[in-house]
């Protein structure tokens, strides 16, 4: 064996050392070993040695989990986990989806639920009453909602309690007939027949415009010359921003019907009906200029 030792350079007694020098030589040897091994002292159960630098014998005792994963815990949206060996985790949100088209919307903070695909052509719609806050629903058709269908009969027909939830009202009157020949049809906003609140106005054909007074109790929505036996008449009325409570109101009315003298000829009218009240419109009154309605249908739509 080399003396001093190959790795640590510890000096040992030699074969030529005097016996009287052996205790001192062993002292030197033992102290050298002690000094070299000092770094290995200390530590507690389960600790391991860790190098503190590149220097020989530069060690320290450390807890054996520093820098290592000791457990995998499943958090929100994840299932599985473990503390040893091969650990499997699963994306719970992915496994919640079971069918083509599934969505996984939130049901609250950190929670979710499956929402199956709707039917063809349905659209995703917000719905605060649904657990996921949304649902699949049939798309509305062009923003027009049929509010009522009313048969024309009697001396007048009033549509009352009209919802104010729409941007405008659209009214189609199909095949109206009257017991009296050469008749016309009138309309009153809010069934209001007070004098001097309505006015028929021709649609302006130039930029000059027109001014005048309100002199009438109703507005005309057809030409005063419809036949009372033959009808192919259609009336189209639009009332914009009818629910506001700040402005005067008006309606565009266009009609095409059978002339009372020669029913193969037309009676046409297109005009504006003005109303000088600011109250929101919640009812409409229709009446013939004279006589009674005998047939015909009013379709009232709300347009969003």
């Amino acid at each position, binding site marked *: 064996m080399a003396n001093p030792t190959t790795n640590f350079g510890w000096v040992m007694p030699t074969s030529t050392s005097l016996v009287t020098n052996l205790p001192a030589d062993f002292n030197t040897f033992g102290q050298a070993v002690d000094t070299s091994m000092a770094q290995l002292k200390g530590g507690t159960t389960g600790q391991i040695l860790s190098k503190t630098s590149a220097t020989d014998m530069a060690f320290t005792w450390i807890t054996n989990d520093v820098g290592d994963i000791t457990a995998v815990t499943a958090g929100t949206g994840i299932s599985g986990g473990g503390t040893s060996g091969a650990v499997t985790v699963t994306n719970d949100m992915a496994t919640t989806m079971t069918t083509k088209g599934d969505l996984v919307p939130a049901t609250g903070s950190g929670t979710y639920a499956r929402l199956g695909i709707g039917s063809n052509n349905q659209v995703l719609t917000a719905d605060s009453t649904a657990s996921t806050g949304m649902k699949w629903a049939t798309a509305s058709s062009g923003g027009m909602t049929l509010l009522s269908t*009313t048969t*024309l009969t009697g001396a007048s027909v*009033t549509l009352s309690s009209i919802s104010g939830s729409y941007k405008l009202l659209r009214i189609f009157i199909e095949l109206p007939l009257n017991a009296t020949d050469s008749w016309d049809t009138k309309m009153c906003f809010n069934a209001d027949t007070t004098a001097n609140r309505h006015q028929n106005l021709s649609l302006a054909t130039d930029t000059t415009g027109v001014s005048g007074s309100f002199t009438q109790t109703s507005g005309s929505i057809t030409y005063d010359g419809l036949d009372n036996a033959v009808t192919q008449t259609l009336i189209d009325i639009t009332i914009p921003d009818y629910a506001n409570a700040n402005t005067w109101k008006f309606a565009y009315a266009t009609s095409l019907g059978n002339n009372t003298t020669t029913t193969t000829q037309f009676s046409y009218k297109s005009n504006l009906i003005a109303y000088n009240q600011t109250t929101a419109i919640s009812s409409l009154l229709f009446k013939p200029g004279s006589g009674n309605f005998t047939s015909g249908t009013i379709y009232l739509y709300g347009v969003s």
Partner: protein
Amino acid sequence: MTKLFKTIHNVETDEIQQVPLTSEDLAMIESDKAEAELMKSQEAKAKADKEAAQAKLAALGLTADDLKALGL
């Protein structure tokens, strides 16, 4: 004689009522007739006035286009 009535359709509830006409309703019908007659007579007078004016123009050898050309 058939009793006259008016129809009221509650759009919200879809309830339809047929209510006999009141004296006010009957008065309104008469008023509507008078209003219609007045409008017809006004339209007829306007038409007659226009035709008379055109006849006078023609007697002077003028047309409506001549008046437009003069800015009238």
